[in-house]
């Protein structure tokens, strides 16, 4: 019988990822979704998706820069939770908002650049979610990594989607953009090697100091 063993950190990540959904359901049942509930649901699921996507992008740098290994164990879960919220966000848009009216949806997606970039991000995340299993990792081999690098593109598209939506004060979406940019920089090989070298040196020095003490 398989025994699922989760670390406390993993459990915290799962619980944390479900908090936005729980709050959304709570507010729905408490009749607390503002007088424009569709917009509220759209904003909240979109925000949760973006935050979780950024967190999943942060996992690898958390390991390479800070040596925080547990982050690698939750990277996929965070990405999939982000995709869950993206699906809810998209379903809200096509179903609740546009009542599955294909004509209107087509017009909204292909004539408005904000919706188009959002849709592109959705398609990217869809393909990444489908290929997130061990089986697909094996099947795709080296290409899996290449394909999954697209997650950065999805992150940038999501930020652009957000920037193009707000009426004028774009400080908040730009903050997300800066974070995604930083995380992207952290993956550039030169930078990554530099950090790892620095960290390696630091660890050696600390160990040496320990020995002396």
């Amino acid at each position, binding site marked *: 019988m398989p025994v699922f063993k989760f670390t406390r950190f993993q459990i915290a990540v799962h619980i944390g990822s479900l908090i936005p959904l729980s709050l959304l359901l709570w507010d729905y*049942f408490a009749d607390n979704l503002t*007088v424009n509930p569709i917009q509220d649901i759209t904003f909240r699921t979109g925000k949760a998706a973006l935050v979780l996507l950024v967190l999943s992008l942060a996992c690898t740098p958390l390991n390479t820069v800070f040596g925080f290994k547990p982050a690698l164990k939750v990277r996929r879960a965070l990405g999939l939770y982000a995709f869950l919220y993206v699906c809810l966000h998209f*379903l809200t848009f096509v179903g*609740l908002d546009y009542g599955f009216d294909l004509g*209107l949806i087509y017009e909204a997606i292909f004539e408005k650049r904000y919706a188009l970039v959002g849709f592109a991000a959705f398609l990217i995340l869809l393909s990444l979610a489908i290929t997130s299993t061990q089986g697909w990792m094996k099947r795709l081999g080296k290409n899996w990594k290449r394909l999954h690098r697209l997650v950065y593109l999805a992150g940038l598209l999501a930020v652009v989607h957000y920037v193009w939506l707000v009426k*004028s*004060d774009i400080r908040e979406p730009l903050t997300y953009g800066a974070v995604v940019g930083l995380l992207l920089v952290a993956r550039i090989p030169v930078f990554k090697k530099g950090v790892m070298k620095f960290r390696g040196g630091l660890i050696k020095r600390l160990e040496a100091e320990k020995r002396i003490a």
Partner: protein
Amino acid sequence: MIRIPSSEITPEHVYLSRREFLKQMGIVTAGSLLLSACGAKPTASPQADAGEAATGLADELGDPATSYEAITNYNNYYEFSTDKESVAPLSKDFQTSPWTVEVGGLVNNPKTYDIDDLRQNFDQEERIYRLRCVEAWSMVIPWTGFPLAKLLKEVDPKPEAKYVRFETLYDPEQMPGQNAGWYVWPYAEGLRLDEAMNDLAILATGLYGKDLMPQNGAPLRLAVPWKYGFKSIKAIVKIDLVEERPVSLWMAAAPREYGFYSNVNPEVDHPRWSQATERRIGELGRRPTLMFNGYEEEVAYLYEGMDPFADVPANS
């Protein structure tokens, strides 16, 4: 432009109370969220339902007035907050008395009015208007107020006066949003003089028969229903007749997106989103947006021989 009968523009599924709307949504969300054990939905409290019951008020197209609760708790009022739901709590202590409105500029009888004079000297009428926000949501609001034309006639514009410029109170202590350097405060708006003289343009002092709440622009605001909501400036302290076209706060903030006229037009999209449809607060789904927000008959003459949507690249 063909005038669409109201029976055609209102899909049958939209006549839902908010409670029913949430119930209907429950079917969709429960399905899409794959909820199995969320328990029974609490039944609606009778009080809440009574509060949301139809008031019998409706616009001339037969659409019911939006609930007082919604109108007073969902506000775009950046002087207080960019979050619509935070405006009501943040504005609750806003001082609306004493309050004076300075009417001047190119007029023969400039005058500073006390707000009480405006309430008493001008017959207050009820006007049930649609309000279409540029963000593509809308409400039906039973305003109380008086035609702007009556006030303008009293101050007697000079022949060279071509435009009316309105200004909101500037008081960053009371209106913390005015500390945001993002915009050129105070909020300003403008109308062409003939637009301002149109009978539909009113200065509102109340809604639902009560005095305006601070979040709705107390004590005095403009209501120009054929234009996007941001034209209907709130908490007015100054009205000037001028020769040059005024620059509104939104024109200054985003000239490519917001023009002077800003007439509602489903065929002219905002540069970043469609204006073809709107979400009526309290309804599920979307409804088509009407030319001039449904007031084409009353206002189209103002724009004859000109393209009232062409003064900026889009969305004017």
